[in-house]
């Protein structure tokens, strides 16, 4: 690796998107979700901050139903979602031993 490589490009080993970065993270997925969303309260919320604030993009809007889909297996276990949106996010830890497994931390 030389020192004069230029700014990161799409194929750069220096990742940019959350999707690419999540590939680098090691998980031991549990079978059941540790996250629940109260869909009615979610629908009633205008800001829907979970859709943009989650560092792992775990929450996604189902355009057809207006409901919130939860990719719980990608969760990095920070807790930001329930602090940000306590009205409709119920977040617990995955069971002991499951979930994210940082290799560096």
């Amino acid at each position, binding site marked *: 690796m030389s020192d004069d490589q230029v700014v990161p490009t799409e194929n750069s080993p220096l990742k940019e998107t959350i999707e690419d970065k999540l590939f680098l993270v090691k998980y031991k997925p549990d079978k059941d979700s540790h996250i629940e969303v109260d869909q009615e309260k979610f629908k009633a919320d205008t800001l829907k901050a979970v859709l*943009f604030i989650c560092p792992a993009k775990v929450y996604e809007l189902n355009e057809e139903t207006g409901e919130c889909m939860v990719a719980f297996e990608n969760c990095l276990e920070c807790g930001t979602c329930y602090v940000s949106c306590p009205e409709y996010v119920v977040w617990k*830890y*995955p069971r002991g031993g499951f979930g994210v497994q*940082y290799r560096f931390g």
Partner: protein
Amino acid sequence: MSEEEKFDCIIVGAGPAGLSAAITLAKAGVEVAVLERGEYPGAKNVMGGILFTTILDKLLPDFWEKAPVERHITHRRFSLLSKDSEIALDFKTAGYNEPPYNHTWSVLRAKFDRWFAEQVEEAGAMIIPGMMVSELLMDGDRVVGVKTEPGGDELNCDVVISAEGVNSFLAEQAGLRKQHDPAHMAVAVKEVISLPQETIEDRFHLNDSEGCAYEIFGQAVQGTFGSGFVYTNKDSLSIGVGSTIHDMKRHKLNPNDVLEGFKKHPAIAPLVRGAESQEYAAHMIPEGGFHHLPKLTTNGLILTGDAAGLINASHYHEGSNLAMASGVMAAETVIAAKEKGDFSDASLSTYRQKLDDSFVLKDLKKFQNLSKFLNENPHLLRDYPDIISGMLKDYFTISEKPKAVIEKEVMAKFKKEIGIWNIGKDLYKIWRAMR
């Protein structure tokens, strides 16, 4: 529940707070078990990466000879970013090259915590990973044990030390804290990116095992209430950003977008050029400070470290040593309580006194008004970097204008954009907030 399952003390969490408490108790012959939800200690733990080690050095003298630490920090840099410029305070000294290396080391927590836990086990504590405490067992208003997942087993003890970190669900169950406030909680994202050791040493002007810590404010986090960091490890960098959840929400920001903006800033891009992403991580930081501390004890329960909100969120960014100090003090409190046979709140409340008398709460108290002040004066981190770098840019721009004219123009601009009086007021307020 059989009698042999009763411990003197159960510690929830094998981070710096829990492990420091455990080793202190084990050395005193107290029967202690540490329950950790990660498959191994460190599996869930994220930190920027500067471990402050005054306490660790007392617990495990000369730890650096064996511990998986990365570099000792001899170079500290604090800077403010505007959109295209950087203003920095930069300090380095070879004076930190001797033991105990100014008690400042870059570490990667997944590696370090695992090693620390092994030392604690050797000292006689039992460490049980892969075990999450789902709730406290109560007898009236007294904590008498914990319930664990998976399995739903119940373990009894005289006293629980919560070293469960920032989420602190058990502290909430015990009624010691209220719901988390997004204004006092930061979300941080971090990447570990690898570079050859030689490149790091050349790029950051480091000899051998020396390391540096850059703390970066202003446009590093798009003018929100937070900061960015770049720390050198042996053959990788830790780079990240953090801001309050309140601000992220208000500005509709995604933490990774802020991190990418930071990595692409002209002052930062050359530092990360050619590096390879190794891991991405996210974690919260409790930044409420002295004004928002929870109650720290109740009957049969003591809170330590991040679970107790013990973070010095000023420019010092210290949490690891406060966690370790509070772990040791919690253990000392338990040892004294055991001698008396009294684990009531009244007996355990000497813990708060110990913290008050030490650097832990003295430092939190010193900076108690800083975050409130910065929150109430968002222009400081949002506007000043642009104004000041604009002035410096004009000042250093080469032209055929006589220097006297340039100086006059810069001063005139300064008076117009900030005003002597306003900057005087702001500087005075900053000084007051830091006293």
